[in-house]
């Protein structure tokens, strides 16, 4: 199926991690015919690696450093991308992090961490969207895909500010979709289940630290919990994200699609 991405310029945030959803999405956008895929990350060296991998596929790419929690850094990053490519058709808001771990009783949680967590995932996504929307409006065309999380519906994991920040992204997706529908901008959200990225370190074969007995038990329990019998992969998330970024889904807006093997229904 031709996804109609020829001639399109995309911007992917949080695309530095070499095992994350951002890089997988950026590479798939390139493979499917985008003319340019700009990548941004708080870590420029990592972003450069992803940009290099994109260029190897014959697609234009630049890496720009930006901390998405800083409106000024975001504005200058977006300006740089537009100066280079003249437009942004597709924005994939992948940047985020788990600062506040789930499974901590509320009285042991630090309000300063709540603020940091909400600022990174929610306000960060809002900052980048805010910087890109005027360009999309002027083009009368734009597609935004936010990365949500299955944790929004997995209450057993505990009171997690991470889950709450991602649930707020679901709402941001719907509200922005409603408001910008008539400007020709679509906004959707892909909500991944646990995957072996930096977020789901416990699922990785090459877990950075030697796992404790408790971690091993948790890993086994998680692996046994997926209805489809396996954990998600970055490719699963990239497939859904690129589909939503393409004109194949030109009548879909304001939707959250869970790519979690049936963990969230």
């Amino acid at each position, binding site marked *: 199926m031709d996804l109609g991405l020829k001639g399109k310029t995309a911007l992917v945030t949080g695309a530095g991690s070499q095992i994350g959803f951002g890089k997988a999405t950026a590479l798939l956008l390139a493979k499917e015919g985008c003319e340019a895929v700009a990548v941004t990350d708080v870590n420029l060296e990592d972003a450069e690696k992803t940009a290099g991998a994109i260029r190897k596929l014959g697609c234009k790419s630049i890496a720009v450093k930006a901390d998405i929690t800083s409106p000024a850094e975001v504005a200058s990053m977006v300006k740089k991308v537009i100066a280079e490519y003249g437009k942004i058709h597709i924005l994939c808001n992948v940047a985020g992090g788990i600062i506040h771990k789930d499974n901590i009783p509320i009285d042991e949680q630090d309000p300063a961490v709540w603020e940091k967590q909400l600022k990174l995932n929610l306000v960060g996504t809002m900052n980048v969207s805010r910087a890109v929307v005027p360009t999309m409006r002027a083009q009368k065309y734009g597609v935004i895909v936010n990365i949500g999380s299955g944790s929004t519906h997995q209450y057993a994991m505990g009171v997690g500010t991470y889950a709450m920040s991602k649930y707020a992204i679901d709402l941001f997706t719907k509200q922005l979709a409603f408001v910008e*529908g008539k400007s020709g901008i679509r906004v959707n959200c892909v909500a991944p289940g646990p995957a072996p990225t930096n977020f789901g370190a416990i699922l990785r074969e090459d877990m950075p630290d030697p796992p404790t007995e408790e971690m091993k038990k948790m890993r086994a329990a998680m692996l046994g919990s997926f209805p489809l019998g396996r954990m998600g992969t970055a490719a699963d998330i990239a*497939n859904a994200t690129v589909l939503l970024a393409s004109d194949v889904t030109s009548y879909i807006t304001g939707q959250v699609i*869970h*790519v979690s093997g049936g963990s969230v229904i």
Partner: protein
Amino acid sequence: MDLGFKGKVALLTGAGSQIGFGKAIALLLAREGCDAVAITDINLDYAKLTAEAVKALGCKSLAVKADVTDKDQVQGMVKKVVDEYGKIDILVNVAGAILGGGPLEEQKQDLWDREIGLNLYGTMITSQAVLPYMHKQGSGVIVNIGSGSTRMYSHGVSTYAMAKGAVDTFTKQMAIAEAKNNIRVNCVAPGPSPTNFIKAPNKQTVIDMLAKQIPMGRGATPDDIANATVFFASDVSGYVTGQVLHVSGGSVLD
């Protein structure tokens, strides 16, 4: 993007209408490389027209008559398809219709029964008939057609919307029950579209009127629905199950 349909056999119900979602989905599955796309409808003449259009794309096809509310007819139809092609990899449950409406006190219970029988039981009966074959081959994909009406309360108390709401729940329950058998079940919920579900003679006029309330300013096209359905039917969505995706231009957000 290669959707991996090479060698796959699909079965579509309610694919007779020449302006409906079923035909658009059947043609897209054929174009994207399915080996065979079998067509069923209560109206055999219409099903044959779709089958011919599928064959014109170089894909195998077969038209079989079946009333999806009749278990015996459905089981016979499914057997005929399996006899012909050896398996069914993809089932798309499109058959359905809007039969009634109006204020609750004027509604007749026999119409409720027929509306739920067609939209909910029809989907269940067809899935029930196909499942044993999917179990035998160790894989399968089912895509149900839901409806945006499940979330548009201003349209009134409609049995159609309730039946489609039950199709959403059926999708989720089947997804969990069948995940271990490597069968995925998802649902595409369309917004208003100029198909036979709109009874007025000038369907597009009705859609254009409705479109004023739609954030994206237009109604759905059969192609919009076919694209989403084919995504769920393909291995590209291999980790997606139990989901209801609204293809309604932002009409349904929650």
